[in-house]
């Protein structure tokens, strides 16, 4: 009898299934515990990959709860590619539907932030544009300016204080206060840098990322917050090496 890889895979991911017939020990007896070595290798190695990729989710849930969550997730969402560095992109949506963590509404966005950090870490290298031209520009020229961003730049808007929650757990930062935050990730060299933006700052950077000019981005931010101050967001972009090209709209 022949043991196909479909039956093998199904039995690996479902411990309730019988070990396929035709898998044997040296005496010709059913493989039993020997098959469990493969079951264990798969679930443990993938759970370890998740633990490494989502350290703040792991800390928020605790080691034991995270292990249970990872076991469920691995069996329902095994990786679709051998690039384990990006495994877990389905975790945020999984957390939204996972009953035991429904009281922790911010978890899915924290998972999205940890995914974004990995994308930033592995993104293509880039060379920042010379941003010293910006302060010298006459206002009408500045308003007509558009930016191109580095591939490492990531922006995540949330109804939760995601950057503060991340810092509280990863860096012993101050206790988070309930508010909406947008997380900006830049990568000046090799390590992603997290910047907290106000909701208006988030709208401003998002508009620039979408290719809109400076004037349009300011207008979008001011619609949310008439007192909007662009300098924290702009200085994070400049110091993070996020801007790779500065161009001007053609004159009307």
């Amino acid at each position, binding site marked *: 009898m022949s043991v*196909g890889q479909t039956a093998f895979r199904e039995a690996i991911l479902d411990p309730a299934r019988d070990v396929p017939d035709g898998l044997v020990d040296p005496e010709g007896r059913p493989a039993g515990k020997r098959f469990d070595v493969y079951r264990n290798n798969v679930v443990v190695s993938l759970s370890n990959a998740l633990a490494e990729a989502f350290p703040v989710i792991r800390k928020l849930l605790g080691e034991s709860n995270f292990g249970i969550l990872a076991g469920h997730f691995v069996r329902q969402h095994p990786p679709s590619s051998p690039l384990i560095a990006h495994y877990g992109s389905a975790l945020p949506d999984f957390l939204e539907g996972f009953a035991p963590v429904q009281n922790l509404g911010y978890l899915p966005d924290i998972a999205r932030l940890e995914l974004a950090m990995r994308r930033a870490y592995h993104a293509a290298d880039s060379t920042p544009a010379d941003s010293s031209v910006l302060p010298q520009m006459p206002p009408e020229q500045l308003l007509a300016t558009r930016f191109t961003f580095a591939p490492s730049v990531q922006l995540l808007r949330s109804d939760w204080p995601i950057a503060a929650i991340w810092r509280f757990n990863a860096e012993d930062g101050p206790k988070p206060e309930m508010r909406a935050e947008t997380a900006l990730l830049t990568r000046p060299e090799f390590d992603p840098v997290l910047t907290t933006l106000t909701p208006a700052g988030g709208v401003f950077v998002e508009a620039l990322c979408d290719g809109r000019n400076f004037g349009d981005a300011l207008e979008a931010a001011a619609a949310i917050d008439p007192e909007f101050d662009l300098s924290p967001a702009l200085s994070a972009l400049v110091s993070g090496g996020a801007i790779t090209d500065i161009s001007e709209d053609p004159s009307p």
Partner: protein
Amino acid sequence: MLDATSQRSLPLAPGIGYKPQHFTEIQQDPGPVRWLEVHAENYMGDGGRPIAQLRHLAERFPISVHGVGLSIGGEAPLDADHLARLRHLVDWLNPASFSEHLAWSSHETAFLNDLLPLPYTQATLTRVADHIDQLQEALGRQMLLENPSTYLAFAESEMEETDFLREIAQRTGCGLLLDINNVFVSCTNQKLDPRAYIADFPLDFVGEVHLGGHDEQEDEHGAPLLIDSHGAEVVDPVWTLYAETIAAMGPRPSLIEWDTDVPDWPVLAAEAERAAGILAQVSQ
């Protein structure tokens, strides 16, 4: 079919499975370590630190790229996207060697992140040989195929693993990567004599040797069940088997593999030193 003798450019000396935590120490004092091996899948990002480190190390050390995700033994066709990623990496890095495993790991959109076993039948032989032909064609170079650690057997198997590997190498022109720890683990688990396995192994095709650690368990009948963990020192019986094998086939590039619970650099360097001592005895 590619010429089996066209490439063997790793030095006949110890190498080490590269871990980023040893980046600085490797450059300050590599000790007996003359070359490095990296897992292909860890260097498929677009940029950032991993790629920058690899570029830097490749200026000083010959690099062996070791794939752990292509699923050469898979029933389905090779993953074209992954093949393209491997080709991209091999093209820019131009490593001294490329190797993969006699195993499968992907099936029907699921990648299981483990090296799963194959029945040794004519059908498997044809499939694996076709996949290796396709891979060597895509990469434009010879690859080395590694013997697996196995925990069970397929009742349907028709031939010995050593005969299977010889046939694959003869058909495709690929070389072989002989993992001595895998020989010890598989032979213990399959109730075979590791010395007899080495005696039957087509040593002429071997372009690289692996050495690593394993865990010891028992199955439900009390029989020994060794687990290939890459998380401990190489045990003495594996060193003995390595020394005997090197004496029989001559020196080969020899890698210390340590992937889980990675120790401090001096522990790895000491393992490489031990391999260097055995290689030196044969070279004299």
